[in-house]
C-alpha cells in the first residue's frame, strides 16, 4: 500500500488576533477559535491530490494534541483523508518529541511520503519536518511550492531566499509545505456525514514509548514592543525633504 502520512496541528485560527495574557503565562485561548494549522491544511490537500492522481493509495492524518483535536481530525476526514490517528497529549509537545512520535508511527505505517507544514503558526519553530527526516535517516524537501512523484523519486521546487530551487529526493522522504503549493479545498456538507464513518484511532505518547517531557522552559510571554506613530506629510516634496534631512536619500 502506497501510503502518505500528513501531520496536523491544532492551533489558534489564523484570523484571530492573538493577545498575551496579563500574567504573561501564555496567550489568551478562552473562547478563541481553533483550527488546523494552515500549512498542514496545504499538506493534506497535496496528499489528497497525489492520491487522486493515482500515485498513492491511502492518506492518513496524524495529530499530536489534546482530545479536542478530534474535531480537526474529523475535518481532515471530511476533506478526504482515509483515516486519522490522534496521539493524545494534554501539554504542548516540542518538535523533537513530535518527530520521535512520527518516527514510531512511520515504523508501523511504512509510508511512501510524509508531508508536514513548514511551521505551525503558534510557536513558529519550523523544526519538526527536518528533525523527523534526520531521525528517519531519509531526505527532506522543505518549503515546497511544487511536488511531483515519479519512479520512486520526488522532484520538489522549494521557496528559498534566492528564488525557487528544485531538488530531487529518493522516496521515502519528508516534505514540508510552503503557502503557494496549493489552495486547500472546502469541505462539503455530505463529506462531513461520510467522515463520521471513517476510522479515527486514539492513542497516546506513552503507548508509543515517546518521552515528551519538555526540554525548553518558556519563562514568560510578553506583547511585542509597539512602534510609535510618526507624522503625516502633505505631499511628495515634503516627504523627500524630510528623508533628505535625515540623510536617508
Amino acid at each position, binding site marked *: 500500500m502506497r501510503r502518505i502520512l500528513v501531520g496536523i496541528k491544532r492551533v489558534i485560527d489564523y484570523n484571530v*488576533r*492573538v*493577545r*498575551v495574557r496579563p500574567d504573561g503565562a501564555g*496567550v489568551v485561548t478562552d473562547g478563541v477559535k481553533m483550527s488546523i494549522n494552515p500549512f498542514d491544511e496545504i499538506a493534506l490537500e497535496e496528499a489528497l491530490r497525489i492520491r487522486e492522481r493515482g500515485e498513492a493509495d491511502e492518506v492518513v492524518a496524524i495529530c499530536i494534541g489534546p482530545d479536542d483535536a478530534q474535531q480537526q481530525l474529523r475535518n481532515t476526514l471530511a476533506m478526504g483523508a482515509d483515516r486519522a490517528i490522534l496521539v493524545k497529549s494534554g501539554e504542548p509537545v*516540542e*518538535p*523533537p518529541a513530535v*518527530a520521535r512520535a512520527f518516527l514510531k508511527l512511520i515504523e508501523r505505517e511504512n509510508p511512501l511520503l510524509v508531508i508536514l507544514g513548514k511551521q505551525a*503558526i503558534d510557536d*513558529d*519553530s*519550523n*523544526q519538526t519536518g*527536518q*528533525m523527523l*527526516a*534526520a531521525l528517519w*535517516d531519509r*531526505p*527532506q524537501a*522543505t*518549503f515546497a511550492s511544487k511536488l511531483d512523484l515519479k519512479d520512486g523519486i520526488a*522532484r520538489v521546487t*522549494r*521557496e*528559498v*531566499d*534566492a*528564488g525557487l*530551487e*528544485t*531538488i*530531487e*529526493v*529518493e522516496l521515502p522522504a519528508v516534505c514540508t509545505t510552503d503557502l*503557494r503549493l496549493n489552495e486547500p479545498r472546502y469541505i462539503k456538507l455530505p463529506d462531513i456525514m461520510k467522515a463520521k464513518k471513517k476510522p479515527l484511532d486514539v492513542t497516546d505518547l506513552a503507548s508509543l514509548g515517546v518521552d515528551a517531557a519538555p*526540554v*525548553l*522552559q*518558556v*519563562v514568560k*510571554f510578553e*506583547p*511585542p514592543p509597539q512602534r510609535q*506613530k*510618526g*507624522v*503625516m*506629510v502633505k*505631499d*511628495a516634496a515634503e*516627504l*523627500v*525633504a*524630510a*528623508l533628505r534631512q*535625515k540623510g*536617508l*536619500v
Partner: protein
Amino acid sequence: MNRILIVAEHVDGKLNASVAKCVSCAATIPDAEISIAVLAADGAAVAAAAAAIQGVARVLLVRNPANEPALAAVLAPQVAALAAGHSHVLGPSTTFGKDLMPRVAALLDAPQVSDVMAVESATRFRRPVYAGNAIATVEAPPGRQLVATVRVASYQAAPAGKPAPVEMPALDVVLPAHTRFLSVSAAQNGRPDLQTAARVVSGGRALASKENFALIQRLADRLGAAIGASRAAVDAGYASNELQVGQTGKIIAPELYIAIGISGAIQHLTGIKDARTIVAINKDAEAPIFEVADYGLVGDLFSLIPEIEKNL
C-alpha cells in the same frame, strides 16, 4: 567558556551577510569563543571573508565537492561532527539555516531555539512567536548542547577585524546520496539583496497589475534600493515570491522602508518592524500601515511616485 560554532551560509564563493550578524549575536553570549564552519567545494575566499570578521577565533574549513550547492542532508552530518566540543551551534534564520539547523539538532539530540532575537544568558533567549504577536523568553537546560537560529533582522553585522586562523579539520563522515540539486532560478539582475539592503521599496495590491509594478522597480533603481512586495501583491502575481516581505516571507531591517499601496496586514508589519524608518504611501488614510509609519503620505500612488522621483 561557551564555545560557539556558527555555520556559514555562502553562494558562488561569497559569504552571506547573515554570517556577520550571527557573529554579533554569538558575541552577546557570555564568555564566548566563536568559530565559523565553512563547508564548501573550495571555500578559500569564503573562509578568508569569515576569518576577517571581528570576534572570530578560528574558521573551520571543510572542503568537499558535495558541499555545493548546499543541501541540508549533506551538510548536517558534517556540521554535527564539527559540533563536538561546542556548547552552542548557530545558523542564520534564512531559508538555508531554517532548512539545515533542525536536522543538525536532531543528529546531536539537542534542542533548538528558533529565531533568537536577544540573548539574556548562555541558556536564556528571547524569540518571537504567534507571527510576532508575542515574544517568548525560553530557558534551555544548562550543560547540554544547544542549537539555535538567529533572527538576522535583530542584529547589525559585526565589523571587520584582525584575520583569524583557518583550520582544515579532517572529517570521517558518510554523506547521503539520496538528495540531488537540480536548479535554482536566476537571482535579481544587479539589484541589492532584499534581505540585507539598506533601502527597500515595496509594492502592494494597489499597484493593480504586474505592468504597474514596474513603477516600484523604477523608484527602487533610482534610490539604489531592493524591491519588496506584500503577500497580496505576490498572490496576485504582480511580483515573484522571493520578494515577499512579512512573517511568511522575508523579515527585514533596512534603514529605509517605503511601503507603497500596502495596507499593512499584521503579517506584513511583522516583517518590517525592525526597519529604522518606515514611509507609507496609501490612498486610504485609515490603512493600518500608517500606525507604524514614521512618515505617512495619503494619496494616489500613480501620481505620487513620479512626483517623488521629480523631487529626488
